[in-house]
């Protein structure tokens, strides 16, 4: 293997990065959503929608972290692709629930 410890190997990357205010705003938004989630869970009973609300808030929070804090929005298509793959495959795993849900469906009549 060749030795690469020459000075000309120290290189500069091209990089554009968001201004810090973007990060700060994201942080405040995340905390805000967290408290919305908390307050809703403590004081507002929406029955079956509780879990929907909680999950929607989580998804918004997670997207904010992924897109802004992890910088996916500012990266190449390939990085975006892999971030998406993670989500899509998780959904695929969750199709397992389909087995459990359809187990109680009424069976087909005889001679269908």
């Amino acid at each position, binding site marked *: 293997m060749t030795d690469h410890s020459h000075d000309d190997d120290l290189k500069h*990357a091209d990089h554009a990065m968001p201004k810090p205010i973007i990060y700060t705003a994201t942080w405040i938004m995340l905390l805000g959503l967290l408290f919305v989630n*908390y307050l809703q869970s403590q004081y507002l009973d929406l029955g079956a929608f509780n879990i929907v609300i909680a999950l929607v808030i989580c998804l918004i929070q997670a997207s904010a972290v992924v897109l802004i804090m992890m910088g996916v929005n500012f990266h190449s298509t390939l990085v975006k692709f892999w971030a998406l793959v993670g989500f899509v495959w998780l959904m695929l795993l969750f199709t397992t629930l389909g087995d459990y849900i359809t187990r109680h469906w009424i069976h087909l009549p005889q001679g269908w």
Partner: protein
Amino acid sequence: MSIFELQREGFASQRLAHQFEEINQQNECYIVGMWTFLVTEIMFFGALFLILSLYRMAYPASFEQAHAVLLVSFGLTNAVILISGSYFMTMCVRAKMLGDYRMTQLWLGLTLLCACGFLVVKSFEYASEFKDHHFPGPSFHWETTTPGAYTGSYSSQFSTTMPANAVNSAAVSSTYSAPVTQNLNMHKRQLFFSLYFIMTGLHAVHVIIGILIMGTLFFLIRYRHPSVDDYMPVELTGLYWHFVDIVWIFLFPLLYLIGKQ
């Protein structure tokens, strides 16, 4: 107005590893590599979330009773701590990119503090749960302190503190005072607490790994070690740390908040 500021001049230099041709290729490789790793982490935790949702669908009542005993204040504090840690981490990465060692150290120190704070809160929470014998297994034990765990006019006369194995055959045939009640419901809650401990435990393991990595980085940066001339180690640690944060963003409502109403 652009949200970007283009940074080119003040950038820290990077060293090119032998297998790469140019620096942008190297950076992109590291970022994509980290993301493929995070995808595996998503699937890793995803399976646990699947198990949680499935059992929650199967045993809503038992699970809600068990949800109810988790202390929201601990979870909420930890959520705030982790989200703030995430924010400090982004600032740290930014400072490192700009080659600002002093600020890098400051933000990284803050992130480390958050991480340790998380563990401190978590340890108090675990301690209280161990004290209440909520850890599954032979010593698992259930004391309902939450109102509404058993509704109905007959519930008050049941002893709700029966140990798991105290099934008395003599009592089986008696009319209403059926101590067997507690036995299997207790099992369902064991199911919940097994999941709770595994999920938060694995998350805590990730936090500990994060602390180890960040601690190492902190000292390397403190002593200007050449291996951290490049901002990539900090950037990758950042990605990892954000992922740990995201897991908690989902864990917190799904374990602590749902079923509180």
